[in-house]
Structure formats: structure tokens, C-alpha cells
């Protein structure tokens, strides 16, 4: 109950912060991209996310980046990602990649022991690289397209398929979720979030330069990246862009 009340208070503060700042600008023609029929909703949520981020998450992450030395941050990041190995292993199995799943299990074992609770990625140094799998990708391998792009409140870019995948990973295979000690669990979830947000900071500085329309840039990057991950980094070419220059050529569908 304590937790519920505290969460409620945090969310109320977030809502207040977002409301204080007004509305997102919706460009004409929003929603006409077949990959993003929910664009109007998505832009509002993105805008909300950005405001909360600017007010709360980003300053927190910057503080963390400024106070904690780089090596320690790397250790913490590795440790949290070590906890993600079960997600990798289970999804590699579900995608019929037993060798990769085995690697994930061995990685979890070696990194948790010799690698000091995941702090050092000794397995990668020994030639067993970390995989990057989740249930959204598994659904993709099983033949589900991403469905409409879908921005989640606070969590950011996703798709209908990946949201379902995320829920599954979160509830079924995320080890932190299995902790009985609620306070410890919540602290870890919070710390993991700060670690995650801090890891985005360098990239964000570049995004600020590269993106003309930040929303579109992030969306298109997300959709491309997820498609690439479903094919483990080597997806078939969608279309020949030169086709756009043939007379009467209709555009091919964009998504998988």
C-alpha cells in the first residue's frame, strides 16, 4: 500500500510537470504514414515524455554521470545487463537458436562468478559476446510484423508487438521482478532506470544535432533498429530506393 501511495504521488507530480508545459505541436498530415497511424497520440505522449525527462530523469542521469566515475558506471551497467541474460537465453530458445541460448547461460554463470556479479564482462573478453534478444523480437521471428508504432508513457518508443513482448519479458523473465523484498526490488528498478538513462546521454547529444524532426527521427530509427534485430543484424533489403525514380512506381510497403 505504501508503494501504491508513493507511486501515486510521483505520478501526480509527473502529470503536473507535463500539464504545466502545454501541448505537443501536431504537424499537418500526421498519421498518414502507414507505419504510424497513431501519430497524433504518439506525438502527445512523446511530448509528455520529453517534459518529464527534462524535469526529472535527465537531470538525475546527469547528476549520476557527473558524480560516479566512468569505470564504476560501466560496472553497474554490466551488472544490470547481466541480469538480462535469462531474457536473452529464453528468447534465443524460443527463436530456435539453442547454441546462442547456451552461450547466454554460460555468460550468466561466468560473469556472475568470475565477473564479480556481472560487473566485468569476462565472457565477452573470452569471445562469447552478449546477445540482444527480447520477446518482441521473438514475436517478429515468429512472423508478427511490428504493427503500429506506439510510444509508451515514460518508457518511450515501442510498437504494438514490442509492447506485448515487453510485458512478457517484464513479468515472466526479468529476475528483478521475482525479488520478494519489495523495497530492494523497487530500489533496483529505480537504479536500473538511472543507469539506463545515463547510458543514453552521449547519444542524445548527437541526436540533438542530427535530427530535423526529433520525433520522426527517433521513430524511424526505432522501426529500422527493431527490424534489424529481428534478423539479428542482417535483414533483407526492403526495396531498392531507386524504384522511387521509376515513372508510375508506387512505393512498396515499409514494414516487415
Amino acid at each position: 500500500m505504501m508503494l501504491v501511495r508513493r507511486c501515486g504521488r510521483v505520478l501526480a507530480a509527473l502529470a503536473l510537470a507535463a500539464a504545466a508545459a502545454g501541448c505537443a505541436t501536431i504537424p499537418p498530415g500526421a498519421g498518414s504514414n502507414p507505419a504510424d497511424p497513431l501519430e497524433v497520440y504518439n506525438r502527445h505522449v512523446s511530448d509528455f515524455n520529453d517534459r518529464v525527462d527534462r524535469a526529472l530523469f535527465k537531470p538525475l542521469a546527469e547528476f549520476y554521470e557527473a558524480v560516479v566515475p566512468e569505470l564504476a558506471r560501466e560496472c553497474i551497467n554490466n551488472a544490470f545487463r547481466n541480469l538480462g541474460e535469462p531474457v536473452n537465453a529464453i528468447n534465443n530458445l524460443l527463436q530456435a537458436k539453442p547454441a546462442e541460448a547456451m552461450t547466454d547461460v554460460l555468460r550468466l554463470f561466468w560473469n556472475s562468478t568470475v565477473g564479480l556479479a556481472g560487473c566485468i564482462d569476462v565472457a565477452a573478453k573470452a569471445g562469447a559476446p552478449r546477445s540482444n534478444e527480447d520477446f518482441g523480437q521473438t514475436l517478429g521471428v515468429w512472423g508478427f510484423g511490428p504493427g503500429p508504432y506506439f510510444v509508451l508513457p515514460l518508457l518511450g518508443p515501442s510498437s504494438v508487438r514490442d509492447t506485448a513482448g515487453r510485458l512478457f519479458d517484464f513479468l515472466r523473465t526479468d529476475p528483478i521482478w521475482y525479488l520478494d523484498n519489495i523495497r530492494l526490488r523497487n530500489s533496483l528498478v529505480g537504479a536500473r532506470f538511472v543507469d539506463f538513462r545515463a547510458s543514453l546521454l552521449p547519444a542524445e547529444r548527437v541526436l540533438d544535432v542530427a535530427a530535423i524532426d526529433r520525433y520522426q527521427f527517433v521513430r524511424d530509427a526505432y522501426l529500422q533498429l527493431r527490424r534489424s534485430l529481428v534478423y539479428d543484424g542482417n535483414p533483407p533489403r526492403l526495396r531498392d530506393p531507386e524504384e522511387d525514380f521509376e515513372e508510375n512506381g508506387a512505393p512498396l510497403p515499409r514494414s516487415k
Partner: protein
Amino acid sequence: MTTRNLVLSIALTALLGLAALAPLPAAHAQGAASAAVAAPDALVRALSDDVLEAIRKDPSLQSGDIARLNALVDDKVLPYVNFEKMTRLAVGRSWREATPEQRQALTREFRALLVRTYAGAVSAAKDYQVRLLPFRAGPNDTDVTVRTQAVPSRGEPIQLDYRLEKTDAGWKIYDVNVMGIWLVENYRNTFAAEVSRGGIDGLIRTLVERNRALESKAS
């Protein structure tokens, strides 16, 4: 973790081909002529190594000196990259309606934006080594993808792929993929939206303003 990778790749898209935009040292200028007829993977290999070496050697490049980057791109990298094709593919179908002057302006401004983006990321590049993945191409191929990995001194390798087209002047890079994100593809929707709002001139204006704003922020 997904989002982490996403933003990381956006940043790295900015690295935009350690090879595509970055400088070749003078020592390799002589290699340029032979590289023009070299196999595409050899070209990428040479270009990547040269670029990284140049960055490591030159502190002013590491600090993102735009004038210096631009001079070096003009001088050394241009022979290997087809910026016009890059721009044409990103602009998509409206390219057909663009006048030669508009095409020139689009290419110039898009390139300026890419160089500026690259400048922000170049300081990180010095810690990377480039490794080529196995490459296979038939003798008659005219459009190939060369796959590489940028391997940092610590941490995980980063996918870095190049699309090259065979021209009369040898192989030319026209697109770069960083961690699963193709650069050209990622600008297509934004460019199309700008064109539908304000025509080709509208897109040019947006790019010009964007570059100008970034310039004034940097100085």
C-alpha cells in the same frame, strides 16, 4: 535495453561511416587512384583504417573542428562517397522535380548537416578498431553491402555497414548503416514531410536554417 541501443545507434549513425565523412591522411592520397578500382571491401578497409588513424593523430579533429573536417572531407573522402546519390535517395521521388540548382543546394546542405553531426561524435571514434566481416560478391555485381564492426577498446562491437555502387570511377559509398539503422532511410520520411509542407525549396530552407542554427550554437 532496446531503447539504449536505439539511441546509441542514432549517435553512431552520426559517426556516419567513420569512413564516409572522415579524412584520409595525405600519405594515402597516392593510394586513392588504385583504391578506385580496388574491390569494395578493400576500399572500406583502407578508408576505415586511414580515417581512424587520422583522427587519432589530430587533436583538432577530435575536438570536432568543423572547418578542418570539411577541408579533409573535400580533399580526401569525396572520391569514395557519392553524396549526390545519398541525397537523391533521401529526398526520394521529389528529386525528379528538382532543378539542377535545387539538387545542388540539397546535396550541399545535407552534407553540411552530416559533417556537423559527425563532428559531434568524432572524439569517440579514436577508441575504435574496424574489423571486416566476410564479404562475398560476384564479378558482375554493381551494388554491394560491405559489413564491418567497429570494435572499441572496452565494450561491445558496433555494427557498421556500407552500401557501395560501382561507377565508371570505381566503387562509391552511398549509404551507411550503424547498428541496424541506414542513414538514408532514416531521413526519408523527414525529407518527404518537409517537401509536402513547403516544396523542395521548403526542404532546402529547413536544412539551411538548421545548419545555421547549429553553427551559431557551436561558436
